[in-house]
């Protein structure tokens, strides 16, 4: 594979700046005359704002403005990607711990901090709901005023939406075995290493806004609406995020900073602390009840799934998380009858938003664990049970919807082989295997422009956000391959709505497919122009000419495109400009508004042991296999899959946001919110990919990067069960929780306790 071509593990484009410190993240943007902003928030989950006294704060030297709701247009504008429920700043009430009530703008950070401390808020703490049980209680206070949801029969409850999916008749189904269980998935926060940051500055009669946002064009649209400006006067510059994972998809504080900048006539910068970032974004947490019916041979008869997702005080994109995440809840299996009821339930907590996996890991935890329990009780091999139920390529496992689009059994076979499923198990070890599926994008629109310059170098415009997944490199490789340019001669321009054509968003692992296809189409447009050029120059019928991979195939010989290009551009020079569009239209009748363009399918298998004294889980081997269609850059695929696997171990073994009884977050910050470090890696991490060029993207690619996170938890829990005999339905499987389960197991009926008694392991059980 020659360097730079599709399928080669080329060096990351944009990598050099990242290793030299020159990469400009949003906090690194330097502007003249910028004012520093600091937020003021209350130390409680919910409060009625009685009065805000900014007089002392305003007297601090260097302070230019202290903004509260009173300084905004009335009624205070509200925004949100699904529901326009979030006010630009807290209005009358704060609804979650950390919701800003005031913002200071000052000449220096010191002045802004000093002033923020002097803002006096008189408030009355109100009862808050921060758990599913509390939110669903008929006597619960309402998180959102019913006036925000006019005409909605659910507006007098904290249930934002209820979604029902299914087919067949679950109640009429007869099964040899019914397994039932309830599973909890905790609150997790994204903890991208880059905290959120926002800048805004007046720009002529418009505005320019810098944000580490994954959806620059969505932000542009929202700002235009809120500020009453035409799109063409709203410029969003989106530096590469220092990690997004979904937490930076949707606008949060950009409108606030924009209002301040316009009011003051100067640039305003707001960089959040890590603690404030934790208060700003999280994953939806869930309680999922599953009833699965099996025949004696392990095949599924029905799935009955009730998933309650606890979302935050504002919907953000969380209801879409609920619907999209629960829709394929049955998994990649043949299920004759299914009923899925999924609810988005409001609470006075951090607004839950998109997070890698998008609602799927939460139901996957419940459904895959139930599958394992079914296999155990039937005395069947869990891998066999997966294979027996697995949808075959082309099978419409969700009736009427995109059929199974890969050889998923191959992923299972490879994972089982690489984990050594049939090999003898060392004493005290256990193995688990699980499957995860996620729907790719259901609708979408991406434009790309590609310019072939006079010397054969290339500029690609693509509005995708490269937050580490390597989109820039993928597009550069496609253009390099199609137009025969060395990778170093391809420049990719991203992150500026004034310059780069429209891209709907960066999410759902969509960009290799949707934007990739747009880039490919733009390249093909250029190739078509080259063909016309060659036809003109050589006086040949264009039908007799082919242009591909940097070569022009004339009837009598092959010519490099540079030769044709130079001759064709002539004395005036110039360039060729190609445009490409990739569009997936809405399907209004579809529950998700469109069928998925592809599925992400992953099989994860782990081997683990449990320290019977402390409950500590050690992962000895972790295998992850994803079905990717075609790896444009195999190294990047591996990086994404291994990264997702380790992130999955985070919520499986150690992560959870801890709230107190009033709904305040107790473990804000890096000291008490634990994510995996280099010392927390599996003993061996193995990633593999299935490539059958069966995806809708360039060269048969599918999207990837979320799959390897989806089913880590049930795979580990199954291994823990085999190793230690405990069944746990709550995450994380922190040492204390596992130890608790071991205690309960040992205290159980005498026969069980004897079977569970293990000799104490020697040594503290490290990962290696």
């Amino acid at each position, binding site marked *: 594979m020659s360097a730079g071509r599709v399928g080669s*593990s080329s*060096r*990351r484009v944009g*990598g*050099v*700046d*990242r*290793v*030299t*410190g*020159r*990469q*400009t*993240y949003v*906090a*690194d943007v*330097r502007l003249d005359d910028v004012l520093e902003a600091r937020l003021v928030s209350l130390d409680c989950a919910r409060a009625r704002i009685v009065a805000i006294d900014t007089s002392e704060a305003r007297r601090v030297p260097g302070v230019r403005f202290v903004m509260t709701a009173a300084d905004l247009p009335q009624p205070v504008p509200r925004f949100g990607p699904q529901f326009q429920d979030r006010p630009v700043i807290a209005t009358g009430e704060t609804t979650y711990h950390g919701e800003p009530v005031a913002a200071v703008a000052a000449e220096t*950070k*010191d002045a802004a901090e000093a002033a923020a401390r002097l803002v006096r808020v008189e408030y009355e703490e109100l009862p808050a709901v921060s758990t599913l049980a509390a939110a669903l209680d008929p006597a619960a206070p309402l998180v959102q005023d019913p006036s925000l949801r006019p005409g909605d029969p659910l507006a007098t409850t904290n249930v934002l939406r209820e979604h029902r999916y299914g087919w067949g008749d679950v109640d009429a189904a007869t099964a040899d075995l019914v397994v039932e269980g309830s599973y909890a998935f905790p609150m997790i926060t*994204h*903890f*991208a*290493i*880059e*905290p959120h940051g926002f800048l805004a500055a007046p720009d002529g009669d418009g505005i320019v806004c810098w944000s580490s946002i994954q959806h620059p064009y969505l932000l542009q649209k929202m700002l235009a609406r809120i500020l009453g400006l035409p799109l063409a006067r709203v410029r969003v510059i989106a530096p*590469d*995020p*220092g*990690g*997004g*994972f979904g937490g930076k998809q949707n606008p949060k504080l950009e409108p606030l900073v924009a209002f301040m900048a316009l009011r003051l006539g100067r640039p305003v910068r707001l*960089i959040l*602390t*890590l603690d404030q970032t934790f208060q700003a974004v999280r994953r939806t947490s869930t309680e999922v009840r599953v009833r699965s019916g099996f025949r004696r041979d392990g095949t599924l008869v029905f799935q009955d799934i009730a998933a309650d997702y606890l979302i935050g005080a504002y919907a953000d994109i969380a209801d879409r998380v609920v619907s999209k995440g629960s829709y394929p809840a049955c998994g990649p299996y043949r299920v004759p009858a299914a009923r899925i009821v999924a609810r988005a339930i409001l609470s006075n907590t951090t607004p839950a938003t998109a997070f890698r996996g998008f609602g799927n890991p939460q139901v996957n935890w419940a459904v895959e664990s139930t599958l394992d329990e079914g296999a155990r009780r039937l005395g069947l091999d869990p891998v066999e049970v997966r294979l027996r139920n697995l949808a075959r390529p082309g099978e419409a496992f969700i009736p009427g919807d995109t059929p199974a689009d890969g050889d998923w059994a191959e992923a299972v076979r490879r994972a089982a082989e690489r984990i050594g499923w049939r090999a003898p198990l060392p004493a005290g070890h256990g193995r688990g295997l699980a499957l995860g599926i996620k729907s790719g994008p259901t609708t979408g629109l991406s434009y790309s422009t590609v310019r072939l310059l006079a010397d054969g170098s290339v500029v690609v415009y693509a509005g995708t956000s490269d*937050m*580490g*997944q*390597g989109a820039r490199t993928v597009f550069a490789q496609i253009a390099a391959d199609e137009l025969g340019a060395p990778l170093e001669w391809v420049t990719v321009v991203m992150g500026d709505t004034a310059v780069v054509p429209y891209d709907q968003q960066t999410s759902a692992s969509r960009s290799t497919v949707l934007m990739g296809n747009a880039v490919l189409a733009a390249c093909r447009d250029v190739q078509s122009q080259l063909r016309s050029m060659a036809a003109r120059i050589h006086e040949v019928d264009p039908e007799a000419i082919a242009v591909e991979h940097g070569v022009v195939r004339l009837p009598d010989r092959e010519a490099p495109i540079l030769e044709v290009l130079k001759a064709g551009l002539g004395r005036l020079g110039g360039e060729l400009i190609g445009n490409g569009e990739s569009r997936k239209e809405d399907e209004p009748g579809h529950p998700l508004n469109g069928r998925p363009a592809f599925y992400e399918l992953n099989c994860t298998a782990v081997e683990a042991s449990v320290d019977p004294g402390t409950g500590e889980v050690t992962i000895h081997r972790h295998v992850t296999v994803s079905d990717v269609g075609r790896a444009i850059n195999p*190294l*990047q695929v*591996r*990086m*994404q899959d*291994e*990264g*997702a*696997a*380790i*992130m999955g171990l985070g919520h499986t073994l150690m992560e959870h946001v801890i709230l107190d009884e009033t709904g305040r977050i107790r473990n804000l*910050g*890096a*000291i008490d919110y634990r*994510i*995996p*470090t*280099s*010392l927390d*890696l599996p003993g061996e*991490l193995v990633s593999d990919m299935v490539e059958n060029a069966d995806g809708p993207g360039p060269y048969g690619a599918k999207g990837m990067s979320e799959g390897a996170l989806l089913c880590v938890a049930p795979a580990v829990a199954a291994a823990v069960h085999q190793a230690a005999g405990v069944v746990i339905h709550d995450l994380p499987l922190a040492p204390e929780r596992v130890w608790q389960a071991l205690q309960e197991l040992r205290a159980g009926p005498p026969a069980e306790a004897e079977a569970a008694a293990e000799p104490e392991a020697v040594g503290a059980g490290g990962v*290696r």
Partner: protein
Amino acid sequence: MTDTLERLDAIEAAAIDAPTDHLSIEVTVNGRRRRLDVAVHHTLLDVLRDDLGLTGTKECCDVGECGACTVLVDGRAMNACLILAVEADGAVVTTVEGLADDGRLSALQAAFLDAGAVQCGFCIPGQLMAARALLDREPDPTVADVHAALAGNLCRCAGYEQITEAVLAAAEAER
């Protein structure tokens, strides 16, 4: 003793009056001797980023847990967010901007790129500095050595496997 007390009185009198205590410090940053007037409550991280415009060193947790702000101070890896700039008076500081040699990538930086250790890149300056400190004192590290040396550098993209490979490859290239 009387001298000392007089000096203390003088410090006292001068210091308490000033709303923000400033000190002139001299620090060598990436080989260049700099004389700076810094507020005493500003951290080394603040001064590197805001006063010197060296934004390669990143700010994240501010409590010395994440390692994004790792720099070398007198050859040792430290979190710049927990060092007051005044404490660095007279010190030799190296940041990520000081790794490349006359614009050419060092073997360590090249190894990170070749191994695919760089994803979003935000933790990478810190990882590079922690790796530099390791290789400076241990030119032939084991995998365990690398994991231990970089345990204070969080990567949420979780590129730990590739980062480890990169450090080992750099060690070999440098030997």
